[in-house]
């Protein structure tokens, strides 16, 4: 199983310098009000990594500060050992779906082609080859039939797939996805997760903001628990426990115990044993 092999291989062998993401003492503030405090974090390569935390915990802010979209008050970030600016080409980003205007006069193919813009470079137009590549990406998420539809005429789940296709077109090594599972139905959720598994099987790292605690253990290998501070981060088997979740969600969560009971019942994770 790809999962086992990858975890076994990458668990201890990476050094901090080569880690996909290494964050030191990160503090981020909006209008002088800190929303992330002193985050220290190193993420492993080739895994599916969940970022969980309540609304307003700073999950989106965390991703945005890593990508240089919001200024950091202090701290340092490295991607595969270098600054973000020099590693742009290795990083893909799927923003929250609500962050764009879906009435914009573009079709699904145009949006996916945007994933290729960095590669195309300044001033050069999108050509036939690029469009072909974009269409291939749409095909991979099962949306080839909708390529020429204006994007507001797609359902929420279809829009999410278009965003994922765009990320695929970016052909990155490290992906940041902000709530790709928000508001999608079971079929799309399955499609997305199998896509994530596929990315993982070719050695990509995906950092995914995720809200459904029940599915964290089944979908992800590694988890980052965040609530303004870093509560804990590590392999799901060791850090995704009641105590940590209570710390993250402030004990207000009744669903939580249920989720953990469910989790306890699932006999799996062969990677535990190596």
């Amino acid at each position: 199983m790809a999962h086992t092999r990858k975890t076994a291989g990458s668990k201890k062998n990476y050094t901090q310098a080569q880690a996909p993401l290494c964050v030191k003492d990160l503090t981020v503030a909006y209008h002088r009000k800190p929303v992330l405090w002193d985050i220290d974090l190193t993420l492993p390569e080739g895994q599916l990594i969940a970022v969980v935390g309540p609304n307003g915990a700073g999950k989106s802010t965390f991703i945005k500060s890593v990508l240089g979209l919001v200024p950091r008050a202090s701290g340092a970030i490295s991607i595969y050992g270098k600054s973000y600016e020099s590693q742009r080409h290795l990083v893909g980003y799927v923003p929250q779906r609500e962050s764009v205007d879906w009435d914009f006069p573009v079709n699904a193919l145009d949006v996916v082609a945007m994933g290729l813009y960095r590669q195309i470079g300044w001033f050069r137009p999108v050509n036939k080859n690029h469009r072909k590549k974009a269409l291939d990406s749409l095909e991979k998420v099962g949306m080839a039939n909708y390529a020429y539809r204006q994007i507001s005429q797609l359902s929420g789940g279809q829009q999410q797939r278009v965003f994922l296709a765009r990320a695929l077109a970016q052909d990155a090594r490290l992906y940041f996805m902000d709530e790709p599972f928000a508001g999608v139905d079971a079929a799309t959720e399955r499609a997305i997760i199998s896509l994530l598994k596929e990315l993982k099987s070719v050695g990509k790292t995906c950092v995914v903001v995720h809200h459904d605690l029940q599915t964290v253990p089944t979908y992800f290998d590694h988890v980052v628990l965040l609530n303004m501070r870093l509560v804990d981060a590590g392999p799901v088997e060791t850090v995704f426990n009641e105590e940590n979740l209570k710390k993250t969600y402030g004990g207000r969560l009744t669903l939580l115990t249920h989720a953990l009971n469910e989790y306890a019942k699932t006999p799996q994770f062969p990677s535990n044993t190596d």
Partner: protein
Amino acid sequence: MEWTFIDTWIVLVGALSAAACALLGNYLVLRRMSMMGDAISHAVLPGLAIAFLITGSRDSLPMLVGAIIVGVVTTFMIQGIDRLSGLDRGASMGVVFTTLFAIGLILIRQAADHVDLDPSCVLYGAIELTPLDTVELFGQEIPQAAITSGLMLMVNLAFVIVFFKELKITSFDPALATTMGFNANVLHYILMTLVAATTIAAFESVGSILVIAMLIVPGAAAHLMTDRLGWMLIISVVFSVLSAFLGHLSAITIPTWFGFQDTSTAGMMALIAGLLFVVVFLFSPRYGVFSRMVNQFLLGLRIVGDDILGFLYRYHELAPANAAPVPVPEIQNALQTDIPVKVMIWNLRRTGLILRQNGGYTLTPSGKKAGKGLIRSHRLWESYLCNVMGYCNTDVHRHAHQFEHFTDTKLQEELSQVTGNPDYDPHNRKIPM
């Protein structure tokens, strides 16, 4: 009315200015910053005045520089207030541009005491006078304003073509664009600088009212007419040129019909743009209010037509083979409508689906086929809703009746398969093949 070369120049100056504004305006509309055009075109006023006070002349170049500086400062101020105060964007713009506009007016009054710089001229422009102020170029007398606005149009055209891809991604998804190295802020400032420059270039000749109208209206109209960004740019330019031409034409003709003098051409161009927008709003094929009504109406008629075919089919199914043709009132009674039935009977007859026979109507062979298809869809839907979905109450007929109009043969096949190719519907009526 007599059309002279003067009129041609007026229209040309208007069209060039309007097109230059419209190109950039598309991006203001798409970035939901329509107010920004308004803000900048007002805020450049103090820039004009200061440049004028410093140089003491109405030379274009110092004015352009002054206005661009103020335009960029405005952009920064709006951005700053936006970030720091937490006010919404519209409010930040309002604060900045009204303040600057007021300062500008005061300064201009000040300046106007020395040289002739007329505040009202800034608002309405003096497009009618532009053909008089000419320079010689290639042995031709060409109005100064035509050259300025023509150059501005070239610059803007080059900008939207060269940066087409960059403008697209930074307008649609600034965050992603920035992570890819296409800095959204940089493009924002370039765009705003060009808006400021365009405003100035157009200011003197066409006035700020037309500038504001042309920054917003063509883009908004084009957005209603197309789903592609490239077409949106083209349509907005066509729209602005059309407004300029029709605007001037109306300015010199319409008032004379009522025995008045010509009216302000710039004002009329803006008004025509507004009227054209209303037309687009009502009639644009996809989003137009009127087109939507027409489509609804046509759909309604189509459904009545379908219902007539279905009714006649059912009638023939139950009645003996030699039954008399069905008279119109009976159909009207069954369908509970009057005029639509008449219209559609006329149409069905025209298309050869029904036949008139001794005072009534019967289906032709092709009509029978169409009717059979509808009834088949209807009964398959009933079977599906009842047998597969377990939804068997009296509403079934009503739902099946709605769905039958939107069921093509492919869907029919699928329905037939999932219901197990039944011969009879839940009410034990035969499902025709």
